[in-house]
């Protein structure tokens, strides 16, 4: 199989999800759900934010929030029945009390500065409004309507402002009363005191205005029908009024707000029921982790909180939010967003026909590890979304080959040149086949060699071997065609061995191979056979990292722990372990697509780790060692075959080839003679480091130099005396800088590019 480059001039798209499929995914994420206190408030006051501001001591900003939410915020704060405090999640912690939010509001009104400046000059509306009768509802409605710029008249029986206010809010203390009085006087309302609110008076006055609201008393005087429960509108009398059941301070404010919405509809000649949106209190679906909350009591409110008391009380708030997934996932942390938003961006990115796909990098750097599916209380599956997006991009020719080409060719190499599938010598068919996985052969060939010898010696019925890749690379790359091809190749090999049980040494292989035959972990085999002779029994302290490939596989997680115990390991576990373990950064080919993101994954997985990092996946073993940690795969421990520092990209390939040759030579007596090079080829350490970083293989350099020997084409840098030559292999042009003598070449630098070049 070969990969050809795509064209950016082919415009194709395929929908990633239907609207319903997208909604079904997005709705699982509750991150943007309101906090429980906020949801309980019919005014939808963001109590979490108010509490946060108060905790920081920013009383003025908190006060401004409150004043935006309702007129006469003083009255609200003083009398609110505070369902928020009852719904506060802290109540669920034994011995803990909900945050006293209304007390914070009172403190806020007292200690915060009033906003100065009235903002923009607003033009009066053409439609006019009248309000009749004094009660808290009508007082707030009048303020609402005036706030909406309707010229507003207010007819009350009370003789003056003081009388009006004590009628509407008799519960106010002295300070609040005078502040509310000031607010009332400052409002642009034409109040007529001392009116006789008879049926005739109200009916006659009402006709002079476009909009009207009345108190319960005036409603009774009008002998009108009950208002509608949602719009608060009485069709017959053409007035707004609060329903009979509408008692309480908070309810008066909520009803006033609803009446204001109705007034706007009526003013526009619409039905008041028109497009009102969601109103009132709601149930929040938010999830908050309470496990770390320490019980605490509310600060006593004696009169009113001092600023310090208010801050102390507010600081008890845990700022309810769901961050379960992002806490454990470096990918989300890198992109700084939550799954619902990420999903939408991925969906949009896939839908772009022409132009920049800003989210390709994110799609291709998720580890596909499914940690989020476990950490999220609703099982959000980002991996499915990223993988679907990759497949979609491959199908529509939008997936750049550059992203995964190296890994894909690595898989082709493992299952081509380095592939080996044989029954044990002397057996036609086998009971077992050992499948160590491509990374084990690359990183720890000696451990694989010893393990295979041990399995042959101690298991009856023949133990075959397959050296190759399980195909996961192509699966991760979204290239299903190659994945299926690889599965067919492995299926044929297994068939030829008489369908043996597959002994895997990598949980990811086990997952990929399931369906091709019965799989059993090498750990299970070693547990039932017992440790081989010479295995250590006092390995000491280790940190055990679960592989993301073993997520949901409690059996394997336990087997490895049991095996580690027999090796005398004293195991500690990282914060995220078992099913919640993160990916090391190898998964999903993240390291190929976005090395910097993969590095952050490795760092997060190793956070706080010291000493020996024990793994049971060669990918983890490799990445942890590369990050400077002392890491070891459990097979290296069992067979006393520590592989040391991890090999480079070329050495990995050589290790696989060498393991294959060794097996062929020593088990089957087949000596594949390697033709030695007919010239000297040295690569300096500097060139080697560059090659590693630039993903250039020794074999690439060899091809370039062979081409030079044939063509003689090179450029001489006059000042350095170095020669530079190039050769195009597949989709990449490789360049080598070198010196030459009669015996051969010394390569001092290497680089590459994917662009083609032509002269005109």
């Amino acid at each position: 199989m070969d990969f050809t480059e795509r064209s950016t001039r082919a415009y194709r798209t395929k929908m990633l999800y239907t609207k319903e499929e997208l909604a079904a995914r997005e709705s699982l994420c509750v991150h943007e759900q309101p906090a429980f206190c906020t949801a309980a408030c019919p005014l939808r006051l963001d109590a979490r934010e108010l509490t946060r501001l108060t905790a920081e001591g920013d009383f003025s900003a908190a006060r401004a929030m409150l004043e935006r939410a309702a007129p006469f915020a003083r009255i609200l704060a003083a009398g609110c029945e505070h369902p928020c405090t009852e719904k506060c999640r802290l109540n669920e912690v034994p011995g803990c009390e909900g945050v006293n939010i209304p007390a914070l509001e009172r403190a806020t009104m007292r200690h915060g500065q009033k906003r100065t400046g009235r903002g923009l000059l607003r033009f009066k509306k053409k439609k006019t409004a009248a309000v009749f009768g004094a009660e808290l509802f009508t007082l707030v409605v009048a303020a609402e309507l005036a706030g909406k710029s309707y010229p507003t008249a207010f007819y009350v029986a009370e003789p003056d402002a003081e009388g009006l206010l004590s009628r509407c809010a008799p519960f106010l203390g002295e300070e609040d009363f005078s502040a509310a009085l000031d607010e009332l006087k400052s409002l642009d309302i034409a109040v007529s005191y001392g009116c006789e609110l008879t049926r005739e008076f109200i009916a006659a006055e009402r006709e002079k205005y476009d909009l009207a609201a009345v108190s319960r008393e005036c409603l009774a005087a009008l002998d009108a029908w009950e208002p509608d429960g949602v719009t608060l509108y009485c069709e017959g009398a053409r007035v707004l009024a609060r329903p009979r059941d509408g008692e309480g301070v908070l309810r008066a404010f909520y009803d006033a707000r609803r009446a204001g919405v109705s007034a706007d509809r009526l003013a526009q000649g619409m039905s008041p029921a028109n497009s009102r949106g969601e109103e009132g209190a709601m149930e929040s679906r938010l999830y908050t982790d309470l496990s770390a909350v320490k019980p605490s009591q509310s600060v006593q409110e004696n009169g009113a909180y001092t600023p310090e008391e208010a801050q102390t009380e507010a600081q008890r708030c845990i700022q309810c939010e769901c961050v379960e997934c992002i806490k454990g996932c470096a990918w989300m942390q890198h992109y700084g967003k939550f799954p619902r938003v990420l999903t939408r961006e991925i969906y949009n990115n896939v839908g772009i026909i022409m132009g920049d796909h800003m989210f390709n990098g994110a799609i291709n750097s998720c580890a596909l590890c499914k940690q989020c599916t476990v950490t999220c209380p609703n099982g959000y599956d980002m991996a499915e979304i990223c993988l679907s997006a990759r497949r979609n991009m491959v199908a529509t020719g939008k997936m750049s080959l550059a992203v995964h080409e190296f890994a894909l060719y690595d898989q082709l190499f493992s299952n081509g040149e380095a592939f080996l599938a044989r029954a044990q010598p002397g057996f036609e068919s086998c009971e077992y086949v050992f499948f160590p996985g491509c990374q084990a052969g690359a990183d720890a060939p000696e451990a694989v060699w010893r393990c295979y010898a041990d399995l042959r010696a101690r298991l009856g019925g023949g133990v075959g071997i397959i050296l190759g890749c399980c195909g996961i690379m192509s699966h991760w790359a979204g290239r299903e065609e190659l994945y299926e091809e690889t599965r067919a190749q492995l299926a044929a090999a297994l068939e030829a061995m008489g369908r043996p049980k597959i002994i895997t040494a990598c949980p990811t292989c086990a997952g990929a191979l399931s369906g091709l035959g019965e799989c059993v972990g090498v750990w299970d085999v070693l547990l039932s056979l017992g440790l081989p002779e010479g295995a250590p029994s006092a390995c000491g302290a280790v940190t055990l990292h679960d592989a993301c490939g073993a997520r949901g596989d409690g059996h394997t997680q336990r087997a490895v722990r049991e095996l580690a115990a027999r090796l005398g390991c004293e195991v500690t576990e990282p914060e995220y372990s078992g099913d919640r373990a993160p990916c090391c950064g190898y998964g999903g080919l993240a390291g190929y697509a976005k090395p910097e993101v993969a590095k952050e994954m490795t760092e997060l997985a190793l956070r706080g780790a010291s000493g020996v990092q024990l793994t049971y996946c060669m990918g983890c073993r490799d990445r942890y060692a590369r990050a400077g940690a002392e890491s070891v795969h459990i097979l290296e421990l069992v067979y006393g075959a520590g592989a040391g520092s991890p090999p480079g990209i070329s050495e990995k390939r050589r290790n696989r080839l060498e393991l294959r040759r060794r097996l062929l030579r020593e088990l089957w007596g087949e000596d594949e003679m390697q033709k030695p090079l007919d010239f000297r080829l040295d690569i300096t350490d500097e060139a080697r480091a560059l090659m590693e970083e630039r993903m250039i293989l020794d074999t690439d350099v060899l091809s370039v130099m062979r081409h030079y020997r044939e063509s003689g084409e090179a450029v001489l840098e006059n000042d350095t005396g170095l020669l530079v030559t190039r050769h195009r292999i597949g989709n990449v042009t490789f360049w080598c800088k070198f010196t030459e003598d009669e015996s051969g070449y010394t390569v001092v630098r290497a680089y590459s590019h994917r662009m083609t070049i032509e002269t005109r």
Partner: protein
Amino acid sequence: MDEQKSYYVIDPEGKLTCHKCGVPLVKANAVFGYLDNAFPVELPVCPKCGFVYVPEDLALGKVLSVEKVLEDK
């Protein structure tokens, strides 16, 4: 695309020699191509055999960054 525009200019004057032909490289027009896009450049070229030299700083600088942009188109 603007044919006059050149994405890279280098003057090889006296710095580079074609090893095969033994003649100095000269500045000449060339075109980079990637994913069905083309970019005119001026590069050192051998006037005899036509060998085009892409210096390391160009390959890892401008060329790489344009590759990356196109890969996300």
